[in-house]
């Protein structure tokens, strides 16, 4: 059995880099993107926000055009960053996808009970979890599906005035709708992700592992019992 004070490796350096690269891109894309929406029927937080953001770059539609250029450059950098990550650590990406999309028996009751415990303060015992708990899986699924939708719709928007004829303008209109939907839903999940990972005290070692790459064994056993058990069985099988 792994000693309680040992550290277990959890994230490769490339995983850590892509996580923080993605976080930085999303933050900048979200801010510049909010500055690009200006329509009385849409303005998520009111017209003052796009006006203020455009004001930083000279104001008016010209300021908006600067925001659009910045948004496009960061968006392309985001896609290239992911392509580089897949080239460097394709195996890690496959492991991640396999983990987040495998929902085991007990996972959904874990999620329901955990949510009840965290918000109302009552809830039954939590079933043991694997490499990711069901909350992490749910947000990861939303991020992967939402990220793909954001990327595809973003590429359509980027190419709209470079490749698309007028007969395909309808596709550009739907890309706007999909872009907004995907970003909105992923952002809703992101609020919980940031709280659970960075603010909630019980996940502090998990948060730290997104810098160091490893977690304490007792934390891993407590939060990801099935993962640690699997590692131990693997180790014994190896011997």
């Amino acid at each position, binding site marked *: 059995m792994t000693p309680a004070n040992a550290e277990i490796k959890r994230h490769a350096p490339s995983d850590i880099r892509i996580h923080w690269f993605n976080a930085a891109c999303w933050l900048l894309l979200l801010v510049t993107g909010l500055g690009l929406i200006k329509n009385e029927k*849409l303005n*998520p937080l009111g017209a003052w926000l796009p006006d203020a953001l455009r004001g930083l770059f000279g104001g008016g539609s010209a300021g908006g055009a600067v925001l659009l250029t910045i948004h496009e450059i960061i968006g392309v950098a985001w896609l290239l960053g992911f392509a580089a990550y897949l080239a460097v650590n394709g195996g890690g990406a496959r492991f991640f996808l396999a983990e987040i999309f495998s929902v085991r028996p007990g996972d959904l009751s874990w999620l329901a009970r955990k949510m009840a415990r965290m918000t109302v303060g009552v809830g039954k015992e939590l079933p043991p979890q694997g490499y990711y708990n069901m909350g992490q899986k749910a947000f990861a699924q939303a991020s992967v599906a939402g990220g793909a939708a954001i990327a595809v719709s973003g590429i359509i928007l980027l190419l709209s*005035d470079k490749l698309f004829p007028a007969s395909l303008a309808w596709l550009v*209109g739907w890309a706007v709708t999909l872009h907004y939907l995907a970003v909105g839903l992923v952002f809703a999940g992101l609020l919980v992700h940031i709280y659970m990972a960075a603010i909630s005290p019980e996940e502090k070692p998990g948060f730290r592992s997104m810098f160091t790459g490893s977690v304490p064994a007792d934390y891993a056993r*407590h939060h990801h*019992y099935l993962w640690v058990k699997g590692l131990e069985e693997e180790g014994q099988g190896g011997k």
Partner: protein
Amino acid sequence: MNQRLAMVIDSAKCIDCKACQAACKQANHVSRGAWRNWIKEAAPVVENGKLARGHFQPGACMHCDEPSCLAACPTGATFKSADGSVGIDPKLCIGCGNCIAACPYGARFRDPVRRKADKCDYCPQRRAAGLAPACVDTCPTKARVFGDINDPDSAAAKLLAANQGRVVRIVAKGRDTKPNMYYIASTAPEGWAVKPVDPLSFNALTQVVAPLVRYAVGLSGLGVLVMLGRQLMAGQKPKASHHAGPDTTSDPEAESRQGTANKPETADKEDGHDAR
């Protein structure tokens, strides 16, 4: 008082020479196959014993006071200027085409070369040089008159004043977008303006997706606030009981272990062991 640029047209004077259309294309480098302005035609009705009369009607973007194109633009690339004109910033236009369907006059098109929305802009480069828009300047019969109708000395305002009560506008079906194009006495054809419609994708965005996102973000934000509130309230207790100094960050591991020992989460720590 703000400017209010408008076009006052005596369509009875129009001889359908198309000089306005050619001058506009030349002045604004409008792409091949596209036109920023037009001359519509009411075909003469030929009947025995009556004079057959046709009618020509010059037109273009009507720079409405309540522009349906602006309401359909997601980015604000279409805007209403202080001079009353409706403009497009091509650098902010993403070519989604919403405004084209939303214009009841068909005044907008997606430029086949630039792939962005385009339409009449009252020739700002000519106005800056003190000239009238190209179509107005070139009109041999002076059917088109352009100016600030809030300035009583402008030709357009004078023409409007002289024809008070005898001015018609072409109004969209179901919604008056308050066009700033005035026809003297009467004009034909009439009733050709369609109903302004937003594309389905934009209606889905404003009526379904945007409220859905608002609820999802609101619910999630509320959940986070509740969790944060519980965390802060739970954090008060150990502070009060142990008066061991600042309980933050110097050793996050130890803190977390100690923290969990004092909280309901202890149960789930044991769960992990007990379950197997």
